[in-house]
């Protein structure tokens, strides 16, 4: 099989591969999303009727979202999934694992804290320094912590110092490039 054919055939192959846990549920999310905004568009259309009105395109596109979600839901209904044959509680657990791996959830949590800190006007530089250092150290945790060997203080100090250097480089880069070169106003 040629390389292009291989690439093209990814579509049917992918379709036959088991769906990730939560993939079918994602189509339900789009259906609800589309349904809600379709109702909103309908209300807008009632206030501003007419095919050339401001409500025509929103009504059409939200209708397309609903339609495509339904087609996806029906089309994917019978496809094998990673969740098949599991109990509902296992399905929920598996779906949450796929949707929110530890590293992604931790980044989302750090981002939330970062946004709250920015909103509280704690200052861009101190907030960013903390965010960068904490996130870098967290994602390098395997270098200083493991279940078998526990916490390795020496390795931690080494990684912490290294990350401090990376953080300093990043901040310096932002300061030099964005503040001086691009004249960007920082949050």
């Amino acid at each position, binding site marked *: 099989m040629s*390389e292009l054919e291989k690439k093209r055939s990814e579509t049917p192959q992918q379709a036959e591969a088991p769906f990730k846990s939560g993939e079918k549920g994602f189509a339900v999310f789009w259906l609800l999303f589309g349904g809600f905004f379709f109702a909103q568009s309908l209300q807008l259309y009632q206030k*501003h009727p007419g*095919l050339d009105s401001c*409500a025509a395109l929103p009504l059409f596109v939200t209708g397309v979202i609903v339609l495509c979600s339904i087609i996806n839901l029906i089309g994917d209904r019978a496809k094998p999934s990673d969740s098949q044959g599991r109990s509902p509680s296992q399905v929920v657990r598996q779906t949450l694992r796929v949707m929110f791996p530890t590293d*992604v959830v931790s980044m989302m949590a750090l981002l939330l804290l*970062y946004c709250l800190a920015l909103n509280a006007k704690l200052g861009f530089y101190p907030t960013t320094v903390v965010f960068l250092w904490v996130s870098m150290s967290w*994602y390098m945790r395997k270098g200083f912590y493991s279940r078998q060997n526990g916490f390795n203080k020496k390795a931690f100090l080494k990684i912490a110092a290294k990350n401090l250097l990376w953080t300093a480089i990043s901040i310096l880069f932002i300061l030099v490039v964005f503040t001086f070169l*691009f004249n960007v106003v920082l949050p």
Partner: protein
Amino acid sequence: MDVVSYLLIPFQQPMLILLTAIGTFAGVYVGAIPGLSATMAVSLLVSFTYGWGTYEALALMLGIFVGTVYGGSRSAILLNIPGAPSAVATALDGYPMALKGEAGRAMGIATTQSVIGTVLGIGVLAAAAPAVSKFAVNFSSVDYLLLAVMGMMMVGSLNCKSIFRGLLAAAVGLFFGTIGMDNMTAVRRFTFGVSYLNSGVSFVVAMIGLFGVSEALIQLTSLDVKGVKQKVDKIVPSLDTIVKYIPLTIRSSIVGVIVGALPGAGGDIAALLTYDQAKRTVKNPEVPFGEGAVEGLVAPESANNAAIGGAFIPMLTLGIPGDAVTAVLLGALQIHGLQPGPNLMKSSPDLFYLIVSILLVSSVFLVVFGLTGVKLFAKIVEVPKSILMPMIIILSVVGSFALRKSLFDIFWMLGFGILGYFMKRYDYPVAPCVLGIILCNLLENNYRRGITLQKSLLRLVGSIFTEPVALVLFAVIVIMFVTQTKAYKNWKARREAARG
């Protein structure tokens, strides 16, 4: 001013040359780092260069674009991890060459082929764009409506499980594009009383979130993936090597330009297509394909860079991007008050020829940066994702804030990032979503203009069959849709199976 004067603009303003050089240099390294793409880099730059002059902003962004497309090949050759989708085919023979101790030779060939491909692509852009523009100047509102639909369908139909996922993503993008005050009637749509939303969702914010943050989050799911480092020696290829493969280079570049010019199909498709073509047509390669054949490197590398010139043709002449990066550049031009389309050649011919000129200058710098700095490259490309991804997120935060100095923009950008993460996680394409937001105005304005002119939806639809351009575009859309359906794919598979 004539064409030559326009082409010489960068040489009269040394700052443009310098910015092109910086962009190309940065692009080579950004492209080489797995997880960082041209789309991500250019979308971040849109907001940072917002306050700059159009020329300066374009010089930096185009430099980055050219550099990044090439840069992807470096990590493909050295680490077997394509730095960008357009370098997937490069890894097929580039990495086996590196395993044989020919990493330097492979990188040298990739550089020279990328440069030749870029130059040929630019040549076609310079020759074809004015003609396409002249032809497109008479397009009606229905034609534009169909072009916008076609662009979104093409982007949506590639590399995803089903065309309906692509269509859904495009519709979601269009929906986000409708949020805010309506341009014609000032009616507020989906603002829910939030004054921030009156001006609509900034497509730059959406772009940074959907391309930048979402990719960083996706990369966090595979922190442990590491490539195998190779030793690099002599990198500059001999003239004989370059001359020997010129026919294949030209062939692949032509295919690259054509594929690049198709709305939605970019360098990645061009590279795979030409690799496939080379495999079929090259008789008795010195080394079999897949085991380090030079031809397997020449074809995709010339094609993916030639696709750059091709991708600019529909973007500059029709206002329809050829790929995700030109979609971002389209947005960048709009931010600078320019509207790419058939009238651009009349209203701002300087801009068109400046783009051609900067792309050429950038390809010269590609030779310089591509054939040097291997040691620095080896250091940069090995920066772990755990260091790189938090930095990308901070750059995204700075980028989204820079445009309107609003904290809300940061929150929205992160929201788009999380949405993009889930879309990518579940194989929904994000590019049509971004394209939907960018093209929403074009599509809505032309639809409403068409309805006003034709007086009814039925007559608007009927006008498709009376205008030749609209009819051709409509036929292309139907063919695209049909060939992406499961029924067609099954029929094709059955037919091929029957042929044996």
